[in-house]
């Protein structure tokens, strides 16, 4: 089926082919990061009145899911942390470059980092601390610099960055994807420039891989080593558009596609599927940690274990919940396999059926983030004013009553709609998988599991909010 190519649109195509387009996209987020660092370190340490906490925990996350739903992984494209590339190239002159260990060339390291990040988010109440949020931003820049200095460029994005991998996973539901206009052209392509990069020298065209030091007009290839005609998924695509600029045949398209359906045909590796499963259960826990039953559970667990150690209780809750999620998914996928008469290994079963979690994970996070974003979107105006006032700029008195975008009673119906859409997309994925096996009962089994999870998520979102930093109330 022929679908529209966004790069054929006059302004968009021209902009993304321009070699400084990514830099232009990065500048606004870099300025936001600078202001967040300044206000986070120097401004008032009250989260709703500080630019660091409001911009990071409300607007960044809100716009991120919105961009993924409407277009794609624009926040990786505009990631200001990739501006460390200049300093890393300089540092690489003096330092050795290592190969990223083979054992870590998968998503398991990212899964571990994501779990640690989620633990840190709750344990240190990152959302409530401008100072820690500023340190998080600074730390992110630092780690990006160190990893991409000591290892090949793109290592940080593909194998380390929890945020980037969160974006990759959720962007599997996006309505756009990079692909080849004509795969025949790629077959004839002598240099595979989209992945190897291109340099136009006085002696002719070369790949950056074969002539990394060559003088001439340089067009880097894909940072995460994706070869355009083989791209089936948005996983690992940062939308940096390097491939668009590196292809000398103008054969890269950014095509529209049916949103939420990628997981029906893409063949993900098992580590990628586990990342999708984790993000659903982690998204659930992130929302659950803001409602009263969570605190009741923590009190109960505290009595049961005879401890008030918050780190221990939090770790126990997270490990039990995600562990239960992984085991249940494994069990349901195996059962679905058996019902459909397939005797594959348990991991193959998860690889086959677990892809339905991708749209569910997106819906879980989008539903949660939509609540915070729509509740407090306008608060970015007074916090920006306050941060600029602190810098001595005459921007007027902040109006702290600016906050909500929509009436409060719209929020829950909107969250329900988002989760239903996620379930609808997941059902389509399961339907396609079941049709592949010609066994719809198996698909129905997994659907029942998803339905129960969504029902549980809706129950969590229906609870009154309790925004508390401490797991247990003081005795």
């Amino acid at each position, binding site marked *: 089926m022929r679908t529209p190519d966004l790069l054929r649109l006059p302004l968009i195509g021209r902009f993304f082919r321009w070699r400084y387009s990514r830099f232009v996209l990065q500048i606004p987020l870099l300025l936001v990061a600078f202001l967040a660092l300044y206000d986070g370190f120097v401004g008032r340490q*009250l989260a*709703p009145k500080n630019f660091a906490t409001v911009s990071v*925990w409300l607007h960044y996350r809100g716009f991120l899911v919105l961009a993924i739903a409407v277009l794609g992984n624009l926040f990786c494209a505009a990631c200001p942390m990739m501006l460390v590339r200049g300093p890393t190239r300089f540092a690489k002159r003096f330092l050795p470059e290592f190969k990223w260990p083979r054992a870590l060339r998968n998503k398991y390291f990212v899964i571990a980092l994501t779990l640690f990040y989620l633990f840190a988010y709750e344990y240190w109440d990152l959302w409530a601390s401008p100072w820690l949020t500023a340190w998080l931003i600074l730390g992110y820049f630092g780690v990006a610099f160190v990893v991409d200095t000591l290892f090949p460029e793109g290592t940080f994005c593909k194998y380390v960055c929890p945020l980037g991998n969160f974006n990759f996973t959720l962007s599997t539901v996006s309505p756009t994807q990079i692909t080849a206009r004509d795969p025949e052209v790629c077959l004839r392509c002598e240099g595979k420039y989209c992945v190897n990069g291109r340099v136009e020298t006085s002696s002719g065209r070369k790949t950056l891989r074969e002539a990394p030091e060559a003088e001439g007009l340089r067009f880097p290839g894909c940072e995460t080593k994706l070869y355009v005609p083989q791209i089936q998924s948005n996983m690992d695509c940062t939308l940096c558009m390097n491939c668009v600029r590196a292809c000398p045949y103008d054969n890269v398209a950014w095509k529209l596609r049916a949103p939420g359906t990628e997981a029906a045909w893409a063949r993900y590796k098992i580590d990628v599927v586990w990342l999708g499963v984790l993000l659903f259960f982690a998204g659930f826990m992130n929302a659950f940690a803001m409602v009263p039953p969570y605190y009741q559970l923590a009190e109960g667990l505290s009595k049961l274990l005879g401890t008030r150690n918050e780190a221990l209780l939090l770790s126990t809750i997270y490990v039990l919940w995600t562990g239960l999620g992984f085991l249940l998914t494994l069990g349901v996928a195996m059962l679905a396999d058996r019902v459909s008469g397939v005797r594959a290994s348990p991991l193959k079963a998860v690889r086959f059926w677990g892809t339905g979690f991708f749209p569910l994970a997106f819906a879980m996070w989008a539903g949660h983030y939509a609540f915070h974003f729509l*509740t407090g979107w306008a608060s970015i105006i007074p916090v920006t004013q306050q941060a600029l006032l*602190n810098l001595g700029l005459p921007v007027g008195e902040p109006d702290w009553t600016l*906050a909500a975008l929509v009436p409060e009673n719209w929020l829950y119906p909107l969250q329900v709609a988002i989760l239903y859409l996620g379930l609808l997309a997941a059902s389509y994925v399961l339907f396609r998988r079941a049709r592949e096996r010609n066994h719809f009962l198996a698909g129905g089994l997994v659907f029942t599991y998803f339905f129960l999870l969504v029902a549980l998520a809706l129950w969590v979102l229906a609870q009154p909010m309790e925004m*508390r930093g*401490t797991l247990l109330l*003081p005795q």
Partner: protein
Amino acid sequence: MRRVVLLALVLLSACRPKTGEPLEAEVRFVPEHPTVGKAEICIEVDPRLELTRIKVVGDMTHPGMIPVEAEAHPAGPGLWRVDAFDFNMRGDWVLTLTAYDKQGKKYTKEVRLTVP
């Protein structure tokens, strides 16, 4: 270049808005441990301060929530009261008291509490 940056930083920090003197005040609630809903706030200050106004702003510790604002009214020498402050959500609250005296001098105090 370094000198220019340093000078700019000094100038900008000199322009920072003043946050006010710390307000020495005793803050009590009725009921003593507020729950979701309305609660009375009693603020006791040194009567010699001759305050003309005390404003109370309640923020949740999570960004994005609409602050609750209230004006305290005088209820005796050195005693100010907010009759029905609306703790409209469970969680951690930060109350910011901003007071002004006859000369227009600003005083501030922050009170943190958890509303279960």
